[in-house]
């Protein structure tokens, strides 16, 4: 996993609630056995018209959102299935952070494991950001080390994240490696069963 410290990037407004993982990456793309290359299928059924052409009404197809690396969405983002293909697709498309008032549990965890930063902010702050990001080339800074989000036009918010996960992300550590260092505890536990 690559480390996440601080980014300043273009943010896209995605004013939808309950975006489920079936929408993020529809099931027809789950048959692949790789972790890479899911970006072109991200939001497939919303992003493309039935004839395969980009749907001009879909938020991320608007020219002002091209190259956005931060996604601002509404409540319960990532609900539904446990498919890790969802964060893989968001990352492969180019997103590095998702901001929302709430996330579904499994999606949240899956994102952390892959270095995609889920940022939980209260609904009011998210509503402000959604409005700001409607403007062209809206840039936002997400500073994980200081747990803060700000722009150059007066927006500033604090977010909190579990200190364990913050440390993992900032350092880009491999969780399995860390657990394997605790092998003796696992062995002792197994012997006691």
């Amino acid at each position, binding site marked *: 996993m690559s480390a996440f410290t601080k980014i300043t990037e273009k943010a896209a407004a995605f004013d939808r609630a309950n975006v489920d993982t*079936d929408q993020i990456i529809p099931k*027809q793309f*789950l048959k*692949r056995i790789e972790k890479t290359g899911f970006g072109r299928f991200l939001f497939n059924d919303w992003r493309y018209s039935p004839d395969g052409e980009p749907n001009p009404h879909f938020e991320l197809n608007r020219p002002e959102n091209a190259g956005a690396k931060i996604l601002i969405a509404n409540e319960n983002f990532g609900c539904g*299935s446990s498919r890790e293909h969802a964060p893989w697709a968001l990352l492969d498309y180019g997103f590095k952070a998702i901001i929302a008032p709430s996330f*579904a549990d499994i999606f949240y965890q899956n994102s952390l494991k892959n270095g995609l930063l889920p940022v939980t902010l209260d609904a009011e702050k998210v509503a402000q950001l959604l409005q700001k990001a409607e403007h062209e080339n809206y840039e936002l800074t997400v500073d994980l080390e200081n747990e803060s989000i700000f722009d150059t036009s007066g927006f500033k918010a604090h977010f909190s994240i579990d200190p364990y996960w913050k440390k993992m992300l900032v350092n880009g550590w491999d969780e399995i490696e860390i*657990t394997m260092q605790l092998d003796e505890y696992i062995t002792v536990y197994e012997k006691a069963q």
Partner: protein
Amino acid sequence: MGKSIIEKIWDKHVVYEEEGKPDLLYIDLHLVHEVTSPQAFSGLRMKGRKVRRPDKTFATMDHNVPTDNRSEIQDKVALNQMTTLEKNCHEFGIPLAGIDSPDQGIVHVIGPELGLTLPGKTIVCGDSHTSTHGAFGSIAFGIGTSEVEHVLATQTIWRAKPKTLKIDISGTPNKGVTAKDIILYILSKHGFDFGTGYIIEYCGEAIRSMSMDERMTICNMSIEGGARAGLVSPDETTFSYITGRKFAPKGEELAKAVAEWRELASDDDAVYDKTIEIHAEEIAPMVSWGTNPAMTSRVHERIPYLSDCKNEIERKSLQNALSYMGLTEGQRIDDIHIQHVFIGSCTNSRLEDLRQAAEIVKGKQVHSNVRALVVPGSQQVKKQAEEEGLHRIFTEAGFEWRESGCSMCLSMNNDIVPAGEHCASTSNRNFEGRQGTGARTHLVSPIMAAAAAIYGKITDVSAMMPEEAVK
């Protein structure tokens, strides 16, 4: 202060704890399937890691498998995923119920059926409906592929202790109300994320009188309310289900295990972070009309009006759902016409589900506008159903009788609902595109699905049931 079953199981499984960190939790059973595991095995291979406990790991293939002709698999990408699982299981020494195995089936159907799922265990699987196994009094939850890899390598997982939520269901359900209706009712009343961050314990009179198949249906859909896990304290119903199962303890070992399992039940003075009370009498046969499982109403009700919405977000969600579903505000639920019926999935594909649906279907015919499918949850369910002659009741009525798999619940194989058509489905999710691009899903119980198949529209099944059938 007493402990809940959740705390009892959790505390017994903590391998390592340290201030400021989640707990390192031991995993007793890891179930694996073809879709969420290939990248995990590749990860192990890249780092030269082994599977720590293949003996605590069990694999099957279910998501991708065809349920019609299995002699030649047409979808080469799906086939590659299946053969990849076979190769991985062979290389890492993991037992596999492959496509030709008499034990093959949906991972959440075969775990209990084979006696792998037992009270007091911690169980994970790369699938959000792993909560199903909680019906036995185990902590069971879905994980992503990174964690599949972590569990394969270490047999443990990092988890902060979750909050506890008690759902107490009192009273006796009305005629035509099944376990599926109860969980759909809970979702309709409390929304799609009331359980986020919690493990649910279901208790009360209505739960106690349920069979294991029914308890599994309830626990299965905990995730639809945001809770990763939902469970039921084990009792005599649980122990008698387990007795005689292939991998379950036997003889003296079983007696010893049962004695331990009896201690698991929550203490009377256990304290929960949150409690919800449900009265079974309030519930009628339920039907989802929208694009998440909480968008559900009683069969005799109407779809909500836009003017009833509490805020702008809710109004927008309702508007989007109605436009996707091709329905109008205020429309009667039992006015919805159905073109497809799917009886199956990890929620409702067990023997009792099929028995109850067959009881409704018996001697009747599937409506001429409807294509109806029964997909048993496992090869064992299929075999038992055939021994009881259920397959004949279904096929004589015009249903297709299939091989076991996830099938039309997520339509990864070729069992797909065409765009714009409505499906009465016993599955668990009605998200946009779930059963096919543009497909319109209505979540219902097996008996409600059977009634919809016969009448070609959503129909209150309770009117079709004789008084003595009241459960």
